[in-house]
């Protein structure tokens, strides 16, 4: 397709556009959640949908996550393709049973006879002093549990294509958007939160990582806002003569082992960066996968940088200390290369 002027959207608008286009295409798609109607979603993911599709398909729910996420599961079992929004992933404690004992397991329990085609969207991430119950990413927790795909877009183009893929997927998909990549006016300005997004519907397949920046000396594998941080780190490293490749995993389930192994075969070093907790999480899983897939190509043990095993603190210096940033990523990469 040729366009004279590239159309730019924020990630938030790209998500809302993807949902709108799928609702237009497929009458079975509906959206439900807290403040997703009149408000348009606290993070704007459902902006404009109520006016366009009406309250039968864009349903503001009570603060009742077990109730409405369970209702989404039941609706998915009976012919609809619901999108339910869990406002902050941190709220999973009040509804996890529906998510992991029902949404994620019914297909398996039925021996493959029954599908649960639904998307659970949720906002993740910190960096803006919202403290320990509104700032976590927690994707490692969900990726650990079998039966749901886990999608984490880092930019507007991927956000739209991944959302369309998620809605069309016959499996439960957890779609986790980082508040820092959405391009919201009330969050810290992030130039990478705005980008070219084709107007027509398109898909980005679930399970394919993307090389966000090519490099030869070290692979920095990560997701979400940390992709942006890693790209900034790569600029710093370049000034130091180090060529870093940034691998945006895009989905943790499925994990693109091939892309990870290909990158490690090229750079021979792996740094995994994660805004989730350090222990028993994504960094260990990705590093171990690289070892399993490409051990002979590694010149050093994989390294990792993640949130130390503390809750996300409130006070700005405390929070900034525990989150990966370009400087700490660059320092970790340098240490990995130069010892």
């Amino acid at each position: 397709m040729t366009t004279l002027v590239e159309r730019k959207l924020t990630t938030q608008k790209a998500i809302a556009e993807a949902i709108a286009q799928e609702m237009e295409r497929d009458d079975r798609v509906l959206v439900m959640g807290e403040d997703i109607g009149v408000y348009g979603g606290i993070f704007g993911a459902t902006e404009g949908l109520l006016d366009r599709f009406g309250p039968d398909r864009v349903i503001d729910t009570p603060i009742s996550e077990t109730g409405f996420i369970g209702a989404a599961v039941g609706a998915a079992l009976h012919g609809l393709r619901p999108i339910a929004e869990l406002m902050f992933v941190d709220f999973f404690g009040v509804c996890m049973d529906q998510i992991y004992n029902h949404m994620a397991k019914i297909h398996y329990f039925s021996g493959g006879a029954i599908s649960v085609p639904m998307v659970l969207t949720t906002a993740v991430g910190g960096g803006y002093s919202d403290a320990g119950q509104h700032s976590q990413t927690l994707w490692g927790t969900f990726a650990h549990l079998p039966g749901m795909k886990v999608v984490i877009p880092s930019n507007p183009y991927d956000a739209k294509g991944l959302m369309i893929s998620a809605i069309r997927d016959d499996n439960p998909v957890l779609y986790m958007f980082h508040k820092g990549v959405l391009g919201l006016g009330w969050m810290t300005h992030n130039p990478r939160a705005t980008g070219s997004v084709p107007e027509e519907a398109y898909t980005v397949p679930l399970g394919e990582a993307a090389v966000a920046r090519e490099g030869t000396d070290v692979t920095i594998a990560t997701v979400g806002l940390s992709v942006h941080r890693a790209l900034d780190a790569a600029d710093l490293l370049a000034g130091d003569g180090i060529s870093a490749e940034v691998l945006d995993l895009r989905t943790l389930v499925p994990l693109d082992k091939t892309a990870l192994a290909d990158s490690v075969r090229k750079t021979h070093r792996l740094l995994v960066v994660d805004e989730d907790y350090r222990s028993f999480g994504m960094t260990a899983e990705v590093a171990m996968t690289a070892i399993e897939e490409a051990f002979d190509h590694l010149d050093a043990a994989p390294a990792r940088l993640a949130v130390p095993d503390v809750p996300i603190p409130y006070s700005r210096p405390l929070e900034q200390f525990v989150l990966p940033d370009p400087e700490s990523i660059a320092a970790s990469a340098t240490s990995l290369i130069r010892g």
Partner: protein
Amino acid sequence: MAIPKEHLVAMCSTMFKIRYFEEQIRQIYTEGKSPVFDIAAGTIPGEMHLAAGQEPVAVGVMPHLQPGDAITATHRPHHVAIAQGVDLNEMTAEIFGKSTGLGKGKGGHMHLFSTDPSFGCSGIIAEGMPTACGAGLAFKRLGQNNVAISFFGEGAANQGAFHESLNLAALWELPVVFICEDNAFAISVPKTASTAIADNSDRASAYGIPGVLVTDNDPVAVYEVAGEAIRRARAGEGPSLIEVKTDRLWGHFEGDADAYRADDFKQAMLDRDPIQTFPQRLVEEGLLTESEVERLRAEATEQVDAAIEFARSSPFPEPEDALLHVFA
């Protein structure tokens, strides 16, 4: 209410089928578990929650169902599944862990799922209720004249999911009927020690929906109350809550010593066992003859025996089939 004879016959026949099924499962469950009881051993491993005594709650609802209606049930699901007409062979095979089971051996007796009829159950207390709301939402959205029925125990009525589901269903006027099987004990804890009010049906008023108490463990009483609730739901008049005082004749699970219930309590249950009283009443009222009752009993026995034979003779899944069906 004049109940059509075929409904009375169907209820009686289904009660026989359920009771005989539960008796057979109870017996087979002991295979391979003696002299030392090992829950993992035998023809049927794992926990086993049987519903003998609770048949009236299930069979009283079923004559009102139509194709496409959905049911969610609990960790004690057999009576409801059988009454709804879930394939008995496949259900039994699932309980035996066989490849011919409803879930190809993936789910077991607490996780039975069927598409036609639409049946699902959950081993997590009260958590089948939100999915019933979702079924109701789908029926409403898709313009299907169907209802969703959610069965749960009286112990579930203190869970958040119970209250969230009642609120959602009432708020959205969903075609859902909530049926509380009050067998008076949540495992060992009596309702009097768990619940601030005597009757959960009273809780319906908190959500502005009808709440009806059925005090007798009687298929006809359930039939009448459920009929009205299902009629309302199907007519777009919204959800209802029904509580039925029923009896769990045996322990919470097989192997439960059941020492927490007094002997006279247990004896009273046996004395009013609906598997005796209901057929007797049909005979006394001249609706069925003794020989018709015996024929129904024999037919039920035959069907269950065939299902058990099917399950026994079916192959186990291949071990590596454990890796299948995580994703569609």
